[in-house]
Structure formats: C-alpha cells, structure tokens
C-alpha cells in the first residue's frame, strides 16, 4: 500500500516533497480558501494551487492577540500559522467572503503578515444570472491580477487543459468514493478523507497519477473494516484524522460526506465550452457548497438525502466548529429534514484542532449504540 501511505502522509503534513520539488524548480505556490475559488485559473497560470489548511495547529497563542474568543478555531489556527511563518512557502494568497471568520482572517493576514501576492474575490451569495455574470467578472479580474503579478499568461488553451485535468481528478475521486458503497469497501472512510485532502497540496498531474496507481493497488484489498453502522459526515471544515479515527473505532464507517474537504471537491464535471472563465464562474458558484450560498439550502438537503440513499447510510454526523454561524444556522433546516426522513443524527460541536476527543468518543459511541438497537 505504498501509494496509499504516500497520500495519507501528504494529507497529514503542512508541506510535502511535491511542494518542495515544485519550489526547487522555481515554481510558485498560491494558497486559496473555500470551495468556490476555481483552482484551475491558478493552475493554468503555471502556479501550484494550495488549499490552505492549518495542519498541525494545536493552539492559537499569537492569533488570540488579534482574533477574539468568539472566532472559529479554523480561522484562528490559519492565522497562528501565518503569524508564525509556517505558510512562508506561499508566494500568493487568494481568499473570498466565504464566512465572517475567514474574510477577517484575510484582513489580519494582509495587515500583519502580508504575502507577496494577495487577492480577494467577492463571491455572490446567490446564483441568478446577474450573480454569475458578476462572478465571471471577478474571475477575469483575478486572472488579470495573476498575470500581472507573476508575469505569466493565462491562455484559453491553458485553461482548457487545467479544466480537463481537474475533471479527471473529479472523476477519479468519484470512483474512489463509489467504492465506499460496497458492504466491505477496500478503503476506510478515514483513508478516503485523507486521500481527498492530499490533493490540496500535490500538483494535479502527479495526484491523478497517484490516484490511478491507488485504484490498482486497492483492487481486492480487504482492510480490517468492522463497522456497525454506515454514516454520512457533514458540516464545517473537517480534516481531523483523529476525529475520523474516533468515529471509525467506535463502529461507524464514514461511507459518505458533503464536506468542503471531502465530496464537494469533486461535485460535478465541467463541460469545457468556449468561455472557460464564464464556465468556471457558473460551475463554482452553483456548487451546493456551504450555507454561505443563500439560495442553495434545499439543494444541499436534497444532496444529503440522495447520498443517504445511494450509500446506504444509517445515520448522520452533523459536526460544527464552534462559532461557525453558517453551519450553526443551517442546523435548523437540516434537523427538520433529517427528522422528516427518519434518519438518526447527532449534532456535534467541536474545535478545529483535536481537543476533548474523549468526550466526542463517548457521544459518538452512544449515538452508534443507540442506532444499533
């Protein structure tokens, strides 16, 4: 399982040898946030897109100087890393108005520890035609800014190539995720989440190659998966392998998800028509995404319902990072929906970094136990 270990290794560390090699060859790395920023544009500029995650953060001493105790620990951990120069390998950073915490994180990062290239995208909260046109213009401005700063050219051909490459990634990840539909899947949910995360920091050509190798390697694999129930994981940013481990050790297989660090990465396929920037704008804006998309609540809930059916889900873990008011507010309609469907669920509040795992374990074990009766 060499490939699987490589991917898991890349998911568990802030940097990796792929980034080092990229930098050694004179390549530039651009960090970005959220699931509405098209990586394809960064990639088409010959830059390495890096999805910002504060891997390894376990306290927020410096970040607490600026952000308050009512700000989410994902944003605070990112700031902690930024102030501590842990993201020093970034040559650029692009952010968006994804939520109140992340947009303020960008403000503080920009004012206190600026990266050579910084850009902000105003992403609409709605998906009507006017909003799509707005976002198309925002992306064109973004492309122009990249071209100016890095002295590169983002051509139609480069964009078309990047779109095709990313479509391949989506397709491979979907195949991988479909394996979790099996009664005895060749990978665990925890492994699947790590594989998705690894893609945030590996150049896509190499990542696709690794995914293809992985598919071959795990064919016929029978891991020690003994689960009592099949779970869907949803809610705030989730890349905590310790927490995933707790869930699976408690007897729950993470068989499906609607996470931004999970299946939202490969939701849908771009068709590749004549106006790549326009198509990227429409594609990324229309992602059901997180609750910041104000007119997509029903679509998000329908997606949960569909996955419950397709993946044979018995229960749902709705996990929120404390002070995330997007997922906090979304809990109302989600609760109503899951109650109407008669699907057991648990609403868990947590911090971004691993903490109180014992308490979480007890709650998850009790939840799974209750479902098994």
């Amino acid at each position: 399982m060499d490939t699987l270990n490589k991917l898991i290794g890349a998911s568990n560390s802030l940097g990796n040898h792929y980034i080092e090699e990229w930098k050694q060859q004179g390549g530039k790395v651009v960090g970005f946030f959220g699931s509405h920023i098209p990586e394809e544009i960064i990639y088409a500029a010959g830059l390495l897109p890096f999805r910002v995650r504060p891997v390894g953060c376990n306290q927020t001493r410096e970040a607490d100087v600026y952000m308050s105790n009512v700000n989410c620990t994902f944003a605070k951990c990112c700031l902690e890393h930024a102030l501590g120069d842990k993201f020093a390998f970034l040559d650029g950073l692009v952010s968006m108005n994804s939520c109140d915490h992340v947009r303020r994180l960008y403000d503080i990062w920009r004012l206190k520890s600026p990266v050579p290239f910084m850009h902000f995208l105003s992403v609409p909260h709605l998906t009507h035609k006017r909003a799509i046109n707005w976002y198309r213009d925002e992306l064109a401005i973004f492309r122009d800014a990249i071209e100016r700063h890095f002295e590169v050219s983002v051509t139609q051909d480069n964009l078309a190539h990047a779109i095709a490459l990313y479509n391949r990634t989506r397709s491979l990840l979907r195949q991988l995720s479909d394996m979790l539909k099996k009664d005895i899947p060749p990978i665990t949910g925890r492994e699947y989440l790590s594989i998705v995360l690894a893609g945030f920091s590996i150049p896509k050509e190499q990542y696709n190659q690794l995914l293809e190798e992985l598919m071959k390697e795990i064919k016929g694999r029978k891991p020690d998966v003994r689960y009592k129930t099949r779970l869907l994981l949803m809610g705030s940013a989730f890349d905590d392998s310790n927490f995933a481990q707790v869930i699976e050790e408690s007897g729950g297989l993470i068989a499906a998800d609607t996470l931004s660090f999970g299946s939202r990465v490969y939701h849908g396929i771009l068709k590749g028509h004549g106006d790549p920037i326009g198509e990227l704008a429409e594609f990324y804006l229309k992602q059901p995404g997180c609750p910041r998309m104000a007119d997509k609540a029903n679509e998000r809930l329908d997606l949960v319902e569909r996955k419950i059916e397709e993946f044979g889900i018995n229960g749902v873990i709705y996990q929120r990072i404390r002070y995330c008011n997007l997922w906090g507010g979304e809990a109302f309609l989600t609760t109503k929906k899951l109650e109407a469907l008669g699907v057991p669920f648990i609403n868990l509040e947590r911090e971004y970094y691993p903490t109180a795992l014992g308490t979480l374990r007890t709650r998850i074990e009790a939840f799974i136990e209750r479902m098994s009766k």
Partner: protein
Amino acid sequence: MTAAKGNNSNIYQKIRDTIASVHSHVSKKRPDEAWAYAPGLDFWEKRCRAAETGEKIVWHNFTTIPEPFYAFDLLPINCDPMTAYMARFPNIRLSKWVDISQQYVPDHVCAYDKNLLGLALSGDVPQPAAMVGTAGQPCDSALTIFPAVAEHLGVPYYEIDIPYWKDERTTQYVAEEMKGLLSFLEVLTGESLNMDKLCQAIEYSNRAHELHHDIHLQRMHVPCPLPTRFLMFDGALMNSQVGSPDAIGYLEKLRDMGRNNIKKGVGAISEEKTRIAWVHLPIMFDTQIWDFIEEAFGAVVVQDILTNFKYIPIDTSSLDTICRGLALRELNMTMGFEVRGPAENLFEVAINMARDFKVDAVVFGGHTACEQSWAIAQLMKDVIYDELGIRTLIFDCDGLDPRVLTSEQLKPRFISFLETL
C-alpha cells in the same frame, strides 16, 4: 392574514401595549419628551391593525432599506428593531423565543436571529405576507436564519445580494437587485409599480434623511445638544419608517430641540465631561446604562454606529436614478457598510466618528454574535489610538440577553474605564 401555528398571543400587540404604557408614563413624568414615543406607538398600532384587517406585512432584516415597501402600500417590519423592542421590555421576556430556537441552533447564533426563529416556531406572531433579507451583510447568522424562517413559514422570500466591494460596479449590481425587489413586490401585491407612489416614498425618505443629517451634525456640537437616549429612537425610525410620512414629525421636533439647545448654548446634560463614540450595537436589554453613565460621569454617547447614517439624497427623475440611490443607501446602511467589506470599512467609520464628534473615548460594546467585528476589534482599537490618540473600551455582552452578562456586571467595566479618562 393567517396566523403562524401556535397560540398566537401576538407579539405585535404586546409591543404596542408596552410602548403605550411607557408613553403614558412619560407623558406624566416628562411631558416634554412624550412626542419621542409617538412614532413607535403609531408604527405598532398600524401593524396590529393590519394583523386584523389583512393588510400585507413584510418582514425585512436589519440592513434592508424600507422605502420600496411603502411604495407598494405594504407595512414593513424591520425584525431587528422589533427584537430590540422586545429585549428592552422586561415584561415581554425575549428569552422565551431565544430558548425555543436553541432547540435547533447553537447559542452562538445571533440572538436577533434566534428570537425571530423562536417567534416563527412558537406561532406567537402573525405570519407575514413575505420576507426580504440581505446576503453579504450584516452577518452569517442573518444569512442563514432569515431564509430558513421564510422556508419554515412557507412565505415568499427575496434576497438582496450585496457584494463585498464599494465601487461603481457594486452600486450598479445592487441597483439591479433593487429592481428585482420591486418586481418581487409587484408579484406579491399583484400590482404594477406606480412611479408616483415610488417617488412619493423617496421624497418622504429624502426629507427624513435631510433632517437626520441636520441632527447628525448637531450631535458634533460641544456640548452635545441631544441626549443619548434619543439615539435609540432615531435608529429604529431610520431603519423602519423612512419612506412614510411618519418619520418626519419626530425628526423635525428633534432637530428643533437640538437647534434650540445650541442657540441657548446648553448641552443635553448640565455638565458634559466626556464624549463617547459607541462603535457597536447598543445594549438593548438595558438602555438605561446610557442614562447611568450620563448621570454618574457626565459621559454622553454622542453617536453610535447604528444611527450613524450617511446622507444620501436620491434623485427621483427616473427609475434608474431611484434604484441607483436605493442601492447606495443599501450599501451604506449602518451595520452594513462597516461590517461587510474589508476591515478598513470599520476603521474608517470608527475614526471618522471619533474625530468628527470630538470624542474623548470610544466604546466597543461587542455583541458577542458579531463575530466579524470581534475579529478586528483589537486592530480597530490600535488604529484609533495610532491615528487619534483615543482609547477604546472593549467588552463583550449579548446585547439582547442579560442572562449572559447583566447590567450590574457590565457597569464596573464602564466605571473603571471612565475613571481613568
């Protein structure tokens, strides 16, 4: 108008009755101030009547401008001032609806939104004909709860999308969103837009904004000619009643009061010692805390962020100019502009307030759910000090819910800060 499910004890009536009682009390004790309660009483009287006659009420959020509703003879209710009224009146006990909502959403969701959700779930309020909200301002709580309440109640919903920026492209985008709102209201009422009525509503609001601008400038005067507590009335009125003639009488009286005091060379309090800019939401559950600092320290809150409206007259010569003007007002709504875009928006407003109103201190009484402001509160404090040498008191509270921190727990923070000035 159908009632939402539940016992329908009707919160509109409770608010109206409580204001009537306060109005009656003030008429006896401070008759020269009773007029200040009249617009609020009139507002809720009309909503109570509408709940009986079936006139259409539209709920809108904090940062949605009310003028378009008046152009269609609709009766808007700005849900956040409604909640603020509920918090201010202890007999109403807002905690009931906050608790109901917390069966579904966590405690850190804003109490303004939790109250609305709790009301919708309890059925203690007549169901509106429609709801209108804003996405992009003021916060994530409002972004998720407002449409969810509309979905729960099954009422038509329109969302105004507000971009992050403040440039011409943004203004044009929001102007189109305003046209979308007018179309939505046409469908809701079954009536085509009447330009005469729209112009009339804008003329009323232009007059109200003009008067409010005069009052705004008066508050810069030393000593401040107007008492702090009037800020509460101004904020609710400017958020709910501009676009109707109902705002104008109050504003004229207030403007005259300020003018007379300036002419006489007197301030609102006998000895103004300290001038304060309040750059966050007021403590709604105990507005008398402002009276307390006036009396105990001669400290006057000369301006707060909620009442800090920009003066934007609207050109009524065409639908395009009107929608452009409405867009500019929308983009500059208080607690919209400051909290929406880059941190510099809040810094700019705070510095201008502190400088223009010649304050000695700034207070950031941070409603805990305003996480977007809390994230940059420390930076704002530094910027104000670096730029003007003025200190800022930062403290946290839930502006609606005294169960988090009571007035008695908050007062010592004021006392120790004000004593050092």
